[in-house]
Structure formats: C-alpha cells, structure tokens
C-alpha cells in the first residue's frame, strides 16, 4: 500500500505533534490516526493535554512542532474556517448561543455554508430526531429553557448538522447528572457506530471510554503512552492503564 493511498483513507492524522506554551510542554510528540467509522477516545487524568490535543485538530491551537493531516491534506493547506466547518465540535459547556433558538443553533453551520433553506429545515428535523428531541416541542426554545441533558443533545445535533466527516468531543457529557449521562452515553455510542464518522472523544471517565471508543489512547503528562482496543485496555499491565481499570472497582 502506497503512502498516499494510506493517507487518503484517514480522516485525522497527527505526526509527532507537540505544543508548548510559555516554555511549558503541554503536548509532547503525539502521533495517532483516526479513520472514518473509528472513535478514538483520549483517556487521561485532568490536565494531561487531552483538550489541547483536540484543539490542535481544529486549529484553535497551533502546534509548536509536528504535522497534522486532515482528510489526507496537511492542515496548513486548509483555510482554517473551511477546515472547522468540516469538523463538528462539542465541548463540555456546550456553548450554545443563548440568544438563538434550538432551531437556529442546530442550523448554524448549514446556514453559514449557505445551504438552501428547505434543505436546512429538513436537516434540523433529522438532527433533532437523531438526538431524540421533538421538533415541534423544542425548535423554538432558547437554550435557557432546556435541561442540561437536552442542551448536550442540541450541542451534538449542532455539531453533526452540516454532516462533517470528523467530530471532536471534549467531555461532552461531563456536566450532566449521572443518570442522564449514562443515557446520553448509551444513545451516543449507538449513533456513533451508525454515522461512520471519525470521532476523537476526550474523557477522564474509563466507563465512557470503554463504551464509546473503538480505540482508547492513554494520556499521561502530555504524552500519548499507548493506543489500545477496549478489551486490550482491560488487560494492559501499563501502570496508568491499570490505575484506570482498577478504578472501575
């Protein structure tokens, strides 16, 4: 298999990527690949550089060294705005626009991309259905009129609305109560396998990692120590992996 054809099958690839801020190394020499249909979970304790790694992918942060490829092309060849519109982004605080309705929030990227309005409407309907929210009941609501779990659902619908091939999720279910979280995790893991997208998912929750990931990348102190398949992870002898598995109780 030639190098180029291998590249084009990949949605996201990081090669020896590092990021330092004020002489502090935050991400060190991280490399990984994610193909369409795969979900790579970046698992690690707080402050180990997972979130920064995610922001490197959609170029909210510029790497100090190393190379990032998106859909086979070097990130530097992409216009940052175009790049970001092909990458869905869900963060823990959701960041829904508080002055916009649910419908406006979900339709955001399709409208930025000047989709014809009937197509936007159809897409909003599909997306709300996908995340289990009733269109009639929710479309006209403002984010302040939603529960935490509903907001996260809208956040996911918004990220998927323009059908991006890549989805980045930063502890998207971290701020909701445990019961709602379990519900969202279960539903999302089903949706994720169906969508065929390349997903990079940041969490510090081992249960979530095992449920959602097709691969689990373990982060310690800015380094990606290893990438496992979920059942490999459970039997790993690496101390940090053991620590996570033991925390399952």
């Amino acid at each position, binding site marked *: 298999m030639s190098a180029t054809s291998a590249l084009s099958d990949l949605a996201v690839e990081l090669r020896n990527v590092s990021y330092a801020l004020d002489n502090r190394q935050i991400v060190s020499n991280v490399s990984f690949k994610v193909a369409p249909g795969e979900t790579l979970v970046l698992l690690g304790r707080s402050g180990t550089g997972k979130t920064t790694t995610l*922001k490197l992918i*959609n170029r*909210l942060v510029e790497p100090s060294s190393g190379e990032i490829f998106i859909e086979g092309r070097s990130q530097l060849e992409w216009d940052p*705005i*175009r*790049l*970001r*519109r092909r*990458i*869905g*982004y869900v*963060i823990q*605080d*959701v*960041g*829904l*626009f*508080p*002055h916009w309705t649910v419908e406006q929030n979900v339709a*955001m*990227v399709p409208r*930025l991309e000047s989709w014809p309005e009937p197509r936007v409407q159809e897409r909003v309907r599909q997306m709300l259905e996908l995340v289990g929210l009733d269109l009639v009941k929710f479309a006209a609501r*403002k*984010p*302040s009129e939603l529960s935490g779990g509903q907001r996260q659902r809208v*956040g996911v619908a*918004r*990220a998927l609305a323009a059908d991006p091939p890549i989805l*980045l999720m930063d502890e998207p279910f971290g701020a909701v109560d445990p019961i709602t979280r379990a519900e969202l995790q279960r539903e999302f893991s089903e949706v994720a396998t169906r969508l065929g997208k390349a997903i990079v998912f940041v969490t510090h929750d081992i249960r979530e990692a095992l449920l959602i990931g097709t691969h689990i990348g373990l982060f310690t102190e800015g380094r990606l120590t290893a990438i496992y398949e979920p059942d490999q992870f459970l039997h790993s002898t690496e101390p940090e992996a053991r620590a996570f598995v033991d925390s399952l109780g």
Partner: protein
Amino acid sequence: MSFWTFLVRDHAEILSRTLQHLVLVGVAMFAAVLIGIPLGIALVRRQNLRRWVLGTANVIQTIPSLALFGFLIPVPFLGGIGAKTAIVALALYALLPILQNTYTGIAGVDPAVLESARGMGMTPRQILWDVQLPLSIAVILAGVRVATIICIGIATIAAAIGAGGLGVFIFRGVAMVSNAVILAGAFPAALLAIGVDVLLGFVEHKLTPGT
C-alpha cells in the same frame, strides 16, 4: 416674576434653547458612539492598549467640566468660542461610559460560546456581529444611556463658552439672582434627561435578545 409667567412669556426662547441643547448633546453623542463603540471592541482584542485608552478616558472624566471647556478654547481646529468646542468636550465626557461598557459587554461574553463559535468555523466578523454584539448590546446601550444623561447635564455649562443651550438661562438667572430664570433652564434640562432615559431604556429593552 414667577417661573410660570416667565415660561409663558419666553416660551419661544425656551423652546429654541432646548433644541440647541438637544443638538449639542445629539451631535456629541453621535461622535462619541461612533468612536467609543469600535474602540471599545478593539480594546477586547488588544489588551495592551486597554490600560492606556481606558486610563486616558478616566483622566478626562476627572477634569472639571468648566475647566475642560476652558482648556479647549485655545486648541486649534477643535477649540474656539462656540458650539464646536462644547461638542468636543461633551463627546470626550461621553467616551468613558461608552468605552467602558462596550469593553465590559464584549469581554463578558461566555468563553464557551466563543469557543464553539470559533470551533464551528465562524469568521471573526461573524463572531462579532452574530454573537458578541447581540450578547452585549444591553450593556453597551446602558453605557450610551449613562453618557447621554451626563451630557445633558454638562451641556448646561457650555453656555459659559458661548455654545448656547439651556445653560444660557441658568447663567442669566444666576447673574439676575432670579430663580425663575434658573428654573427655565434647569427644568427643561431635567425633563430632557428623564425623557431620554426612558426612551433609551425602551430601545435597550427592544434590542436585548431574550435568552
């Protein structure tokens, strides 16, 4: 002579002085908004400028208004005797509340909202117009409102440098030791301030997006 007889006898002059007053404040506010809001937005992006600009505006605010009018008279282009100098001084006073509130409003937008806006591929211009401004418009307008009220008050002093306005009655009344004449200036000025406050409050309410 009572205030009321003065009001009836000189209503034409009172009306024209009120209009003059409104023009002074209106032109000054227009200039202050035109400079203050974009500058306030720029300060959010350039934190290093912030201390200097807000510091300067603060210092201007501490200059007694009569002194500021006086200082401006010898300044070429901006100064001199008359309405132009008064407008420059009023605009300078209006600048601080507008700058301060624009900065506070824009800087106060939820960082998560900004991160998602940027992360989903909004351009800086779209972020400004579709996110930052709508979310801070109430705070910015509150600054404009405060600035306008301040200007209506300070504009009464502009009469001292020949700019006209309702201050003419107040200075005349003080010279004549006539409360009626002072009131003929002070009363419409107070009414103007209250009227503008109510009006801008209404605009603020209308433009604030429900959240």
